């Protein structure tokens, strides 16, 4: 599904990713862990196509296509979803308006007609319940006045509605209490399927108790320095990241 080869990327003048390789097959859950400043968020943002990140070498293939040639909105319509570490507030654009515009953009790309508003509303409400978001909040501005936990749950709601094939969750677990962490994890697990892949970018092992990864990678100094199974996360939890600096 996703093949990253020798990826080099920079933000402004600073090289952050220095020859990263990663391959993800359909149905797999990969956790990417590492110390602060290792390049975890840069990797997420490069995959999603955010502006300000410059790829200087290497390639990313998504289902065989050159992902780097596509605009961020096209990547999203093709099935990539990035759950942001810091979701933005957009007063005046309601959550419902965002969801409807996003769904219709996908339908338009496939040559389908716009979605029927009433069916859609019912469907979104159902998803909102799963992440314990009051349907009334759907008519408010995107993340407007939402607490930190509500913003993260709103990211998961968007994911449930948009049904991506590749979910990238950038530190979605940070700043969540146990209840919220469980709601977020349930949302991610609900979407797990043989066709869908997940990348969990996290600093902590805690999330992985709720969402079991197939693979765990350690990202340090711009590349993946170690890969393993779930047991690697436990090891990191015990030993911390200090040994990486020493290595």
């Amino acid at each position, binding site marked *: 599904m996703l093949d990253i080869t020798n990826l080099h990327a920079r933000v402004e003048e600073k090289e952050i990713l220095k020859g990263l390789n990663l391959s993800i097959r359909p149905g797999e859950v990969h956790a990417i862990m590492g110390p602060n400043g290792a390049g975890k968020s840069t990797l997420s943002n490069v995959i999603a196509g955010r502006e300000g990140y410059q790829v200087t070498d290497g390639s990313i293939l998504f289902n065989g296509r050159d992902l780097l040639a596509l605009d961020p909105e096209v990547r999203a319509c093709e099935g990539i979803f990035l759950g*942001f570490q810091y979701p933005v507030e957009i007063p005046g*654009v309601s959550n419902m308006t965002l969801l409807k515009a996003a769904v219709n*953009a996908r339908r338009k790309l496939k040559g389908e007609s716009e979605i029927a508003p009433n069916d859609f509303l019912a469907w979104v409400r159902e998803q909102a319940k799963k992440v314990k978001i009051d349907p009334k909040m759907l008519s408010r501005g*995107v993340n407007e006045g939402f607490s930190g936990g509500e913003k993260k749950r709103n990211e998961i709601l968007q994911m449930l509605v*948009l049904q991506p094939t590749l979910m990238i969750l950038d530190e979605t677990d940070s700043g969540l209490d146990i209840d919220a962490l469980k709601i977020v994890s349930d949302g991610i697990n609900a979407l797990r399927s043989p066709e869908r892949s997940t990348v969990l970018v996290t600093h902590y092992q805690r999330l992985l108790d709720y969402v079991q990864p197939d693979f765990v990678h350690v990202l340090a100094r711009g590349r993946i320095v170690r890969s393993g199974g779930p047991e690697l996360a436990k090891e990191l939890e015990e030993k911390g990241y200090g040994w990486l600096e020493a290595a």
Partner: protein
Amino acid sequence: MSELASTWADRFEQWVSSHDAAEQARRRRQFQRFAATGFPGPADEAWHYTDLAAQADAGYQLAGADVAGAEEASTPIAALPGCALLVYRNGVLDRAASSAAAFDGPALAASAAAGSDDDGTQDDGGIDALNAAYASGGLVYTVAAGQRAAQQLQVVLQSQAGDTPLMSHQRHRIVLGAQAEATVLLQFVGHGGPRLTTHVIEVTLAAGARLHLHRLSSETTGATLLTRLDARLDRDAQLHLSGVAVGGGLGRHRADVRLDGSGAELHATSLQVPASGAHVDDLVRVVHAAPHGTSRIVARGIVDAHAKAIFNGRVVVRPGAQKTDSEQRLANLLLSRKAEVNAKPDLEIHADDVKCAHGATVGQLDAVALAYLRSRGIPQAEARALLLRAFATETLERLGWPALQALIAERLGLPADELDLAFGDAE
């Protein structure tokens, strides 16, 4: 002005001689006032950003009833739902295009013969005098004490010209008795060659009266539209004023509002979205002449390629106008290097126990929000439109008239709001 005065004076004399002696004298007096000052230029502080000097040489002819005639009479003008409709073309009432209801109601009367009996103590760079010298009739709308107008009144003021530059000048009056309530929309439209249109609107609100007065100008290239509102509010009266400028041409809109009675309130909302090449200049001046008055000015502008938007708010608190509560919030989105914005909230305070806040911002579209919307699959153009709509929404919502809000959103080419879906019945 001195030499052009002769051209203008000859034309004026020709025209004015058909009036009776008293009328001639009155109009001559006004014309002389205009001739003395001429069109305002950059030296005039209130016209700092809008130079009308070139208007003097434009060769305008006074539009007559014949010009306002048959050709356009067939153009249908859509009334907003539930509105009584009045249509003026080049200053002449078009009864056929207006709705009967506009003439029927006991409180509602449109007249084609409002005189210019006012000697124009206000002076807006000679334009008031020009208007008074030539003024044809306009709207005379009186709502008696304690009455609420049965319908909203939509007044369409259309300008049109062919190869010959034309001008028309109208004077309107809106008078609400004590505790009376009414809603009026002044809608300025037009097309064709060069045309100069001036409107003076006098508003008098007796104690406790409430007027919602909206202006929607969607003029086109060729238009020079100058409006001036002169409003006086008695005790506890409320004026809810809105001015929305979209489209092209040159528009200059001045509102002078005097809070004469204690507890009077002005709530002014402005939205400027000039088309490329257009120039829009708003001045809202409110004078707090009595204690416990409230004024709120919320103005927003979305200014793109080669357009120019000016908004000046001016709050004057007279001595003795204690407990005045005033706020001015101006915000603009500047979307192009070629666009120009001038936004200034001004304060002049001569009382010591007052609350006067003001602020102005000019910025660009939020790049982070734009990136977020795109990351969800929304194409860039649509994402921009959503954010622009969001910026305009706060002002539109203040209008409190959904049909008008929808009309403006449509004129702005903004995407439809999805919020009509019922959320209230959530289980």
